[in-house]
């Protein structure tokens, strides 16, 4: 597992993310602080490359946005705007400018919010962007989520070679996105597909993938 280890993450919502290369960092207050994370409650989540860091940042931001008391401007509106940008990135609707905006917001919210909540709200974004910037760029520019977590960007397709035309997937698809009749090879209508993943497991020939 070590070669595709992407990050270690201390289980504190305001802690930072640490990439695999820092695996040898001692878990103590100073050392963690030195690489931009924090001790938090001392817990730790280990993730591999099937986890999308943009999604992760979004997850943390959702938490802060719901926790903000709403007293000061940067935290009340700023974290909401950060979340909106992350949502755009995950939906494949972001742009390179969004990455720049996200950073600008993060830095300024951190410095100008009244209390600890707002001041630490941008941490997950700042540290994921520091160590996993490439992933943000992939989302923004190539519209690609290599971890395949951002469903909007993933494309579920039927492998023409493997499909035997059994039609089982068609029976399972909740939105009737799969076309083809009889023993024809099936095709997924990407406009209709909601990326629920049901067909992936329904195919006895493992012909469907993303």
């Amino acid at each position: 597992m070590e070669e595709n280890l992407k990050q270690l993450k201390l289980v504190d919502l305001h802690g930072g993310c640490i990439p695999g290369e820092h695996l040898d960092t001692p878990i103590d207050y100073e050392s963690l602080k030195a690489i931009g994370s924090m001790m938090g409650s001392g817990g730790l989540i280990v993730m591999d490359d099937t986890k999308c860091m943009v999604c992760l940042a979004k997850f943390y931001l959702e938490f802060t946005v719901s926790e903000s008391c709403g007293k000061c401007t940067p935290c009340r509106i700023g974290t909401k705007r950060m979340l909106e940008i992350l949502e755009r990135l995950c939906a494949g609707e972001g742009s390179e400018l969004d990455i720049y905006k996200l950073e600008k917001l993060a830095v300024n919210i951190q410095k100008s919010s009244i209390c600890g909540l707002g001041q630490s709200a941008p941490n997950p974004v700042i540290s994921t962007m520091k160590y996993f910037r490439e992933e943000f760029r992939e989302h923004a520019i190539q519209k690609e989520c290599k971890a395949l977590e951002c469903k909007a960007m993933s494309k579920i397709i039927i492998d023409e070679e493997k499909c035997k035309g059994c039609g089982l997937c068609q029976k399972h698809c909740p939105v009737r996105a799969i076309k083809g009749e009889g023993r024809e090879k099936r095709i997924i209508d990407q406009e209709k597909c909601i990326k629920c993943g049901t067909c992936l497991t329904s195919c006895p020939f493992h012909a469907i993938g993303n």
Partner: protein
Amino acid sequence: MENELVNLTIDNQKITVKKGTTILQAAKQAGIDIPTLCFLKDINEVGDCRMCIVEVEGRKGFATSCIQTVEEGMVVHTHTPNVLEARHVILDLIISNHAKDCLTCTRSGNCELQSLAVKFNVLNVEFPGEMTKHKIDDLSPSIVRDFNKCILCRRCVAACKNVQKIGAIDCINRGFESCISTVGDHSLNDVNCTFCGQCIEACPTGALHEKETIDDVWVKLKDPDTYVIVQTAPGVRVALGEEFGMEIGTNVTKKMVTALKRLGFDKVFDTNTGADFTIMEEANEFVERFKNHDHLPMITSCSPGWVRYIEMNYPELLPHLSTCKSPHQMFGAILKSYYAKKEGIDPSKMYVVSVMPCIAKKFEAKREEMQNDGLYDVDNVITTRELSRMIKQANIEFEKLEDSEFDLPMGDATGAGAIFGTTGGVMEAALRTAQDTLTGKDLEKIDFEQVRGGDGIKRATVNIGGKTIKVVAASGLANAKEILEEIKKGKSDYQFVEIMACPGGCVMGGGQPIKSSRIRSRSRCKKTKS
């Protein structure tokens, strides 16, 4: 302790200030301006909006200059590139959740948010996104609330809760969904709001404003069959000039009269004439009640914000209230009866407009008791601000107007009413008249003793016809509450109480020109008496 001095450096300038001074005040003393938005001196000093952030050497993050006090040796930088960028981001964020309707906004040209946007050269919104949506509350006859323009500075909440001690409005919800609301999210019309309008005066934006009714005035002015009379309260003439760039407190009575005549009003009267009637009635009522020990102290009833307050909060004390109508209502009633008859005008064809420093009077004029034979005493109340808008709409260059005198409905006003606008004035005039009625002699000048640093309560003892009368004048509903509590507990030894809802009296009413937080001042008060 108080006089201890602190040395610090702000933008490379060394300065010495009193201990306890905020960085914002210290900077001001050094001639350095720091932008603010939620700050309202003595009323709202909470550091919410974050516009006033500065850098302090040796400190992580920014310091909040409006609340942070100075420390010995402090080194402050008020406009480093970092500070400027953060302020720009903050302002951008506020604007990103603001209905940007400047062209059709009543505060355009006098809006603290708009002037900051201009100052910061905000040409586009860098961080647009979802906006909170709010229903406009325009059910009350006095106030309109449009929270799509609210920036959550909470200045209104502080004015209502801390200054007036009402608490009709407060901030509800959390985070992005935060908003200013009332109990049960009802209209201000249906909660304990007194329509004093102090929240409007505190608001930096167009989120709170009076219910504008000048269109109705224009319609009547156009109608040749309607006899349109206007009366103006004393508080208006010392404030109207501010809307035209004149110094605070400038008395513009004569220009105002000219402007009103130019606008097409058939007659321009002084509410002081009505005030004289109110005072006469009030003096007589007082003399009677004093003789009969009937519900003393008697409390004045000329401030409709105050009347609404006592009705809602101390109904058991209502018998203490004088039964007199407020001056403009009394005057309106006289105009539609005595004056109409004298001039041979059909009262149903008469339209009386009151120009008032007050928005509670919009509510008052629509009260059921304020009509006779199905005709309202006063048909329309407009504020000082609304009058200034009419003058601007008519393209009148106010500053250049020549002087004119009020029309006289029935001879001269005594001038007793001229002090109606300031606190203590009503009572003084009534006592003067009472003395005259009882003894035929003039009352010596009443020396009010300022209570608690002159902040809204004045007491005096006067001698009328050998009797000692204790009187007190209070302005601001927080002070009113104190006095009412005393009366309720039977601890009050006053015979006469004057109460005005607005702190500082009508000159500081909710319909007066709105001054930016940077130059709010009470100097208007002094000018009404002169």
